[in-house]
């Protein structure tokens, strides 16, 4: 059974919601498929009350005729203009005329000794756990890495009663100030404002500072921080550590969209190199919510053939290029962050492959074949971005190894969805498994 849509949108973060709602308003039949338990993406996770924009768009989505597949992840494109999604142990095929990819971004994680210990999480990762019900009041938290997410996470956790022991931003102050200057013209005031807000909660912001090791018996107990020549330990319950964002490019890569410099190439109407496939939000450049919403609207309009309206918004989108550039510059990683990986530090957490074993190889592909790095369940989503930074292997070569299915799936999802019956953990093909065609 294939359900069919005029426009299918993948990803229900800001860009995907904007695309779906905008396209549906033109009268097109729209489907929206998303992996998470609720719409909103990572930025609007469990919180319509968080911002006016979140509330507005989530209400618009609820009131729209968009067909929603929430809790479904796209795993493959079994044939032209069809995506296969798996959810709750069944799979279904979704057909489309036009496709909008709004797959969002994930955090970049960098390995350092001890980073695999429980309670070392991403910055967004810990935030998601807290939004998902983890009590944080009274807990000692170190927030580290790079990017605007760190301050947002620290502020949210502090608001929930966490004791933010330190905020460590790897970018130097010299790099940070021009970024804020580009935004608001009053950099010192902005920094003072943030420092003031956080100092109320007793936390300290360090720039040019990062974690170099974590230790603990069963779980994280202390983190060693380094700033310039100074190194010291902080006792904490959680380390929330992420080095800005990397786009989720597995699906665009699978669909054959041109990817350049780590991002999907799109034209002014958000169309990728493949006619009828649009891309919006972080996969086209890390720019944050406002740009994602704008790109989503443009993609939704363009996919619905409303080109005049799309062009008007595209002019507004163009004015934001400067912001994306400034953000990219400020979050560029300090090469000294490479120094703290030791030979025995695990880079691939799925297959437990150490840095020593990976760096023997000349390329990502060779390392995969010889060590199994990137071949566990996360399929390189974590270690790929780390290897890109540590070894200088480019994102393009890492993505060139993307193969369907782009997430681990039940064997049954590789067959014909109409012919399968599910019993417990095992499969009972009613009409025999159809072997997956090889290309």
């Amino acid at each position, binding site marked *: 059974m294939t359900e069919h849509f005029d426009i299918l949108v993948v990803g229900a973060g800001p860009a995907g919601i904007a695309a779906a709602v905008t396209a549906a308003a033109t009268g097109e039949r729209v489907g929206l498929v998303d992996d998470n338990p609720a719409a909103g993406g990572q930025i609007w996770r469990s919180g319509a009350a968080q911002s006016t924009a979140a509330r507005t768009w989530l209400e618009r989505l609820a009131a729209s005729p968009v067909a929603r597949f929430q809790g479904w992840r796209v795993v493959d494109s079994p044939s032209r203009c069809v995506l296969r999604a798996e959810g709750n142990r069944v799979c279904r095929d979704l057909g489309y005329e036009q496709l909008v990819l709004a797959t969002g971004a994930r955090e970049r*994680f960098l390995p350092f000794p001890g980073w695999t210990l429980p*309670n070392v999480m991403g910055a967004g*990762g810990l935030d998601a756990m807290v939004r998902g019900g983890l009590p944080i009041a009274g807990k000692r938290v170190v927030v580290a890495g790079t990017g605007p997410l760190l301050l947002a996470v620290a502020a949210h956790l502090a608001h929930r009663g966490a004791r933010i022991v330190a905020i460590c931003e790897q970018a130097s102050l010299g790099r940070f100030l021009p970024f804020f200057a580009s935004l608001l013209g009053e950099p010192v005031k902005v920094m003072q404002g943030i420092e003031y807000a956080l100092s109320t909660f007793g936390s300290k912001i360090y720039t040019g500072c990062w974690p170099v090791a974590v230790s603990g018996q069963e779980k994280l107990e202390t983190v060693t921080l380094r700033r310039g020549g100074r190194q010291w330990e902080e006792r904490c319950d959680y380390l929330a550590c992420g080095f800005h964002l990397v786009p*989720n490019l597995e699906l665009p890569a699978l669909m054959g969209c041109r990817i350049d410099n780590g991002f999907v190439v799109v034209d002014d109407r958000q169309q990728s190199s493949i006619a009828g496939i649009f891309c919006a939000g972080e996969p086209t450049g890390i720019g944050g919510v406002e740009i994602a919403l704008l790109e989503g609207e443009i993609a939704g309009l363009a996919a619905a053939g409303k080109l005049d309206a799309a062009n008007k918004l595209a002019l507004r989108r163009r004015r934001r290029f400067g912001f994306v550039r400034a953000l990219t510059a400020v979050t560029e990683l300090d090469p000294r962050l490479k120094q703290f990986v030791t030979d025995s530090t695990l880079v691939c957490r799925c297959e437990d492959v150490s840095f020593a074993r990976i760096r023997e190889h000349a390329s990502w592909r060779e390392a995969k074949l010889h060590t199994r790095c990137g071949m566990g369940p996360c399929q390189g989503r974590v270690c790929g971005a780390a290897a890109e930074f540590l070894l200088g292997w480019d994102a393009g070569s890492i993505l060139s190894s993307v193969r369907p299915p782009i997430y681990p799936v039940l064997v049954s999802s590789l067959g014909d969805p109409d012919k399968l019956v599910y019993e417990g953990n095992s499969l009972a093909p009613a009409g025999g498994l159809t072997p997956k065609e090889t290309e």
Partner: protein
Amino acid sequence: MPEPASLHLLVNDVPITVSRGTTVASAILIAGIPTRQSVSGEARGPLCGMGICFECRATIDGVRHQRSCQVLCAEEMEVRTS
């Protein structure tokens, strides 16, 4: 009738009460146990919180390898970590 605000589930046979809307990954953290053992025997816990790293996978109601950060707790749910 309004739905009750708290839910009761078992994590490795230990009863846990969480508020509605709690993810299984957060419930496992509340229980204070690792989510899984890595292939070389290290204890692991959740990392990304958004369903991409697979560190939080656990057996939920008998179904193995579920990403617990993407699943909401339900009344009488049985969660098992490895």
